[in-house]
């Protein structure tokens, strides 16, 4: 290597050293906020559609027209429905009585059957024979299992954290 080559290599090294010492320059404070103010975060499609529909419906003249249409429809429907109901009120009264008899009667039967079974069988005797310690332990186990299932369900239904951006290898 000649003297000139060494000089050139030396100067090259100095240039590289000066370049590598250059500081990283920072933008002014609040840069991140200014960027985020310009970024539109993607929304689920259902939210986008709902917001569009709401914006469409809330436009003043359209909102007034929708409300007026609703009122007219309601009045018209009642205008037909009320006279018809009054004309057939006897039939509705009979049907209503029959339904309430069936439902209330059924509920009453079921409650009486359950109470009869509880008091006629040895169920109450068996419950009374279990010690209080065992009862409390059993209740604790059932509560823990129930709470555990609830927690598991919450974790399964929770929205995932982070996005593709967070999973990118930075």
């Amino acid at each position, binding site marked *: 290597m000649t003297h000139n080559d060494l000089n*050139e290599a030396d*100067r*090259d090294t*100095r*240039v*590289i050293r*000066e*370049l*590598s010492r*250059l500081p*990283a*320059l*920072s*933008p*002014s404070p609040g*840069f*991140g906020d*200014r*960027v*985020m103010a*310009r*970024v*539109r*975060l*993607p*929304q*689920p499609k259902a939210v986008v559609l709902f917001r569009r529909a709401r914006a469409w419906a809330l436009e003043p003249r359209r909102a007034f027209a929708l409300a007026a249409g609703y009122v007219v429809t309601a009045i018209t429907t009642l205008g037909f429905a009320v006279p018809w109901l009054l004309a057939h009120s006897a039939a509705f009264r009979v049907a209503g009585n029959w339904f309430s008899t069936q439902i209330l009667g059924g509920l009453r039967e079921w409650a009486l059957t359950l109470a009869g079974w509880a008091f006629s069988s040895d169920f109450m005797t068996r419950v009374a024979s279990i010690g209080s310690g065992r009862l409390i332990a059993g209740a604790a186990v059932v509560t823990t299992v129930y709470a555990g299932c609830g927690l598991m369900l919450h974790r399964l239904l*929770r*929205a*995932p*954290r*982070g*996005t*593709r*951006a*967070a999973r*990118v*290898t*930075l």
Partner: protein
Amino acid sequence: MAREGREAAYRELVRRYERPVFSLIYRMVRDRALAEDLAQDTFVKVMNALESYRPEFKFSSWIFKIANNVAIDQLRRRELDTLSLDGAPDARTQQEVEATALQAVDRAETPLAELEARELGSVIERAIAKLRPEYRACILLRHVEGRAYEEIAETLDLPLGTVKTYIHRARQELREYLEPMRD
């Protein structure tokens, strides 16, 4: 909740890359306010195009590619918009020359210009400013950001040989610019 998670991820992305991206753009365009605007544009483009990012490429290469393109586009626009301080080239009479000549404002008077002078006023920074944009981008990515040749080639969409040539020529020019200062 997913939206909050996404916003946090985006902010982290900006936090990690704001300094290298801004540094690159600032040294390319040499105007602080403009560099901030261009850096913001870069991040907005990155976030809007995240769905199209291909994971087989390095994320840093991709973000620097966008930053470099934004800076180069600005420099090209600036070249087209360049007006002569001495009047329009097709001005014939003295009156026309005076009417089309620009008055240069002394930028050193503004606080922003003072800051720019402080940040980019060193000998090496002024030498970098004299390089061609392609050389400037290569030398900054190589020796300031510490990127490998292959990564620079991927970032700038250039053959590896071209990147090495540009860096070699850039170093040569910098040596020539800096040599008179040392004597």
